């Protein structure tokens, strides 16, 4: 690198130090976030919450009901089922968005003529930059009525369409551009000679795309899926609009109301104080832990899958 060959004058060393301060502050935000939120998040467990008594950590982690009793007399909170539901909903949404995203990426990178491909890239970029609240709004206004009617047609109960399917559709739509964009880049960067080798063996272009190109791009495609899962786990406002906010669970039914860690953090936020407010920080800490572990596990799988044959 070039910088090694520079010599430092006095003014440069001052600049360098000053700039380092910015670097350090920027890098410290993640530490700040973890520290302060954890401090707030453990408060309900170690203080007596102004006379209500402390929250039982084990019950908080395993219970299947969010809150037993009214907020101002109870410290019996449970978030275990929320973790299960959050993971369930995120992975279910991936079941929809992953194949669609990857195949769209394959189309853009390998099949579409240049002008079509560049239009499609624009569309994907636009979708990626649409704020989540808009997805939530479209979920409520457009998809919930459809889900409601679908449930009725199937003879199922559905409270206004709110619940699992609504969340899954909204999350799938939101993660679609992420998966498409990342898959497209990795599909495009597949070594051309691999594809040529396949063609030279008499495989058709279609066979080559599905057998060789996707296989060779799998690591990048997997990264896209990991990123999408992370987003889906942390998405808040859009989900909260279509969730129906189940207070107990876990719920798995497609038409039953549901809830996630984030939707529970937002639910009733406007009119609450005390323990019921503080416990949302605990849920926030839980959310960060869930995201961290999920990322870790998926990256581990990715490394395994990367080395082993499929």
């Amino acid at each position: 690198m070039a910088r090694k060959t520079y010599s430092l004058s006095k003014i440069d060393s001052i600049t360098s130090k000053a700039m380092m301060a910015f670097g350090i502050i920027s890098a410290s935000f993640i530490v700040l976030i973890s520290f302060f939120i954890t401090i707030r998040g453990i408060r309900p467990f170690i203080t007596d919450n102004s006379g209500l008594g402390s929250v039982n950590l084990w019950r908080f982690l395993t219970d299947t009901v969010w809150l037993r009793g009214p907020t101002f007399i109870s410290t019996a909170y449970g978030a275990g089922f929320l973790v299960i539901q959050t993971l369930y909903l995120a992975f279910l949404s991936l079941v929809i968005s992953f194949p669609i995203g990857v195949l769209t990426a394959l189309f853009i990178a390998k099949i579409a003529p240049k002008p079509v491909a560049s239009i499609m890239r624009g569309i994907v970029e636009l979708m990626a930059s649409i704020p989540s609240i808009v997805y939530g709004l479209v979920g409520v206004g457009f998809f919930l009525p459809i889900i409601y009617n679908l449930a009725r047609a199937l003879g199922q109960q559905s409270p206004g369409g709110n619940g699992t399917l609504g969340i899954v559709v909204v999350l799938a739509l939101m993660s679609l551009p992420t998966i498409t964009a990342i898959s497209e880049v990795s599909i495009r960067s597949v070594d051309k000679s691999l594809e040529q080798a396949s063609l030279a063996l008499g495989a058709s272009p279609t066979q080559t795309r599905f057998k060789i190109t996707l296989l060779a791009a799998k690591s990048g495609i997997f990264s896209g899926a990991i990123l999408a899962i992370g987003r889906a786990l942390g998405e808040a406002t859009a989900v909260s609009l279509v969730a129906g906010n189940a207070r107990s669970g876990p719920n798995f039914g497609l038409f039953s109301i549901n809830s996630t860690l984030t939707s529970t953090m937002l639910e009733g936020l406007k009119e609450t104080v005390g323990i019921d407010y503080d416990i949302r920080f605990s849920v926030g800490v839980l959310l960060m832990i869930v995201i961290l572990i999920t990322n870790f596990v998926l990256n581990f799988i990715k490394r395994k899958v990367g080395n082993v044959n499929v």
Partner: protein
Amino acid sequence: MMKEVFKIEGLSLFYKDLQAIKNIDLDIYKNQITALIGPSGCGKSTFIRCLNRMNDLIPEARMEGCIRFDGEECQVTGYDVIGLRKKVGMVFQKPNPFPMSIFDNVAYGPRQQGVRNKEVLKEIVEKALKQAALYEEVVDRLNDSALTLSGGQQQRLCIARALAMEPEVILMDEPTSALDPIATQKIETLLEELKKEYTIIIVTHSMQQAARISDYTAFFYMGELIEYDKTNVIFSVPKNKQTEDYVTGRFG
């Protein structure tokens, strides 16, 4: 008289306005190794890619002239390109095994043609690996990733992959340029064996290699075929001055 596998007449290839190959006439003989030599950018790689129509993949490329494969004109539209590529295998410059197991690599071609029977596939793979002199080395780890093999093994795997299709011709585009001398030697020995059953066309940078292994040598320069003859003729008594300069290393 030896039988011609390929009969090429007046072949030209254009990239947009650039003429990469100029009016080439050439016959490739059965069960012979034909080496294509010449400085880089002389059109030899482009030329062999005409023979299995890989140039079709480049939208700007346009071909003129006539190529007959087994007597049939194969450059015309409507010719079964996939059938052609099955009969004309190809090995690339850098070893490029697919990111799958050794077995699956070799079985890839037959599978794409619809061979599903496990026993049949096993036989094909075993035969191809034996022909490529790789079988002994990988017999215990057929299910390991092909990427765990050494460079030379990978290239022999790529040859096995091509052989699994039971082609008539194998095109090789500088197959040893990315390999060390020992791996190169193994491949050269292998080619000697393979020529009993297959016709081999090899593009090479190394004149020594061409002299060592080939029966016929074609010298390309600036998209033109300068001279084509038996290898010993080319390397001992070339008719053309440019050829002589090139093979004796006095070139430009």
